[in-house]
């Protein structure tokens, strides 16, 4: 079964060299004896939305962490816009233009919504010694922050501490904060978890808008309707390995994916 998929994948190599923004080659991450990510090859094109799915514990979040730099891969190579970022720390990758959200939302709870966004806006400046002297509340900066707050629809609570927001708004705040960092690649880890359908639809709209701004997106989701509708392409992970890749419908029909992930009712996503 596994073999079959390998063949199939190798059989249809996608030739997208010029448009590639991110490529992973043989990325590995081990925790003790556990191979959380075990040699994953993957590419991402400009302005593409790539869905990343797989069973619980497949290594999706871990893979995302190695891309954003919160974890250093134990092997393999990661290239972002032609630069090898394999051994760069997270904050440098963020400056290069990789932004992310977290599966368990990590707002700066004591800071207000506006300040959360400001921190994102300061992405390029953070770390310079001059950051200790420069005022972050200049008019034009506040204006930028306000634009982003409007875009994610949090204007009403911009002066509230982030910890007082409910999950749904927190996820939007996280996306806003990531956008403020002016990324060219956005990594979203289960942004729709804990949202209801209406909120999911709004979120899907937001994700599309972001893509239209020219930002590429990797999207991890367990909500099939969400990820199938949004993604241009889907990669399936299982036990740290890539077991399938292709268009949403291809993946949804893949028997291996149905067996390990979608379950018997998986077929209904195939359309």
């Amino acid at each position: 079964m596994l073999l079959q998929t390998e063949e199939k994948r190798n059989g249809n190599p996608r030739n997208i060299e010029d448009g590639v923004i991110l490529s992973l080659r043989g990325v590995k991450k081990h925790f003790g004896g556990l191979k959380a990510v075990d040699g994953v090859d993957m590419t991402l094109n400009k302005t593409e939305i790539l869905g990343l799915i797989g069973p619980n514990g497949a290594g999706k979040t871990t893979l995302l962490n190695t891309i954003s730099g919160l974890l250093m891969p134990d092997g393999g190579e990661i290239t972002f816009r032609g630069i090898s970022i394999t051994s760069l720390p997270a904050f440098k990758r963020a400056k290069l233009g990789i932004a992310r959200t977290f599966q368990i939302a990590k707002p700066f709870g004591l800071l207000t919504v506006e300040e959360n966004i400001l921190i994102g806006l300061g992405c390029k400046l953070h770390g310079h010694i001059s950051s200790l002297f420069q005022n972050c509340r200049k008019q034009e900066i506040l204006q930028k922050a306000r634009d982003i707050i409007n875009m994610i629809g949090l204007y009403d609570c911009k002066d509230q501490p982030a910890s007082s927001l409910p999950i749904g708004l927190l996820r939007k705040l996280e996306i806003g904060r990531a956008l403020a960092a002016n990324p060219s690649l956005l990594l979203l880890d289960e942004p729709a978890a804990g949202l209801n359908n209406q909120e999911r639809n709004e979120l899907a709209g937001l994700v599309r808008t972001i893509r239209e701004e020219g930002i590429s997106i990797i999207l991890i989701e367990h909500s099939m309707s969400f990820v199938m509708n949004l993604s241009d392409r889907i990669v399936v992970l299982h036990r740290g390995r890539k077991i399938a890749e292709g268009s949403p419908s291809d993946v949804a029909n893949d028997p291996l994916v149905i067996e390990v992930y979608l379950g018997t009712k998986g077929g209904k996503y195939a359309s």
Partner: protein
Amino acid sequence: MTFGYILSICTFASIYAILILGLNILTGYTKQVSLGHAAFFAIGAYAQALLVTKAGLTFWSALPLSIVLSMAIGIVMGLPSLRVSDDFLVLTTIGLNFIVMGITEYFDFFGGAMGIIGINVPSFMGHPLGTTGYFVVTLIFLMLAIYISYFFSKTWGRLAMEATGEDEQAAQALGINTALYKIYAFALSSAFTGLAGALWAHSIGSLFPRNFSFEMSVLFLSMLVFGGLGTIRGAIFGAFFLYLLPECFRFIESYRMLVYGALLTVIVILQPNGMLGRGGLLDGCFFKLKKRGTETQGISKMG
């Protein structure tokens, strides 16, 4: 009138206020809880004392050097915070007290157990400063420290430090070099503390290792938490209040510290965010440097 006494008490309180403003940058903003600020205080005091007594510098020429020196040592002492976090860091900073005390006590270069004597009264334009003069000098430095703190509270640096304190991973994902900002925080904090130490050395005139005990560090953290972690007004209020409180209880003489300890406990229990922190008893009584909501208050988990 007890003018000299009050001035003298206020001089010490102002010195502590400068220190607490420094502690606020480290513990209030960056959430690196420090129970070792007596050590940083000692470093500033000793640096100044050595420069004045051994190198023969004047108060004014030694002061910038002491601050820079404290900052440099503060950076070195901050290095453990890059590896150690949370409660382990708290314990590490407790250790700094004992290590610095041990070193000053056991190396004759630092005066050893005999301490450093004869740190002269600073003079200004050739005239030695009296109690009043020195109080004015401290007050000016306190104003300067407040101004710098206020200015700093509006910079990117403070935002980055707060982000580092709240969630390191999220901060890194937004381009913040959290290690660097922790070090910045240690540097700034120890610069303030070093300044306070130097001022203290001159107002006492002599230094002994045991002057800088762990209990003092506890007092410093209490001052900050009592006033309101993460706020400038809280830092100043806490320093003045908790330093003057035992003085106010002079009339009950030997029950003084009992009452002080009990009061400290009761107030922290009733006002866990500090008197001037969010929701504190006096929140809003004093003029605020910024409108509500933009100044953040310390109500997060430790570390």
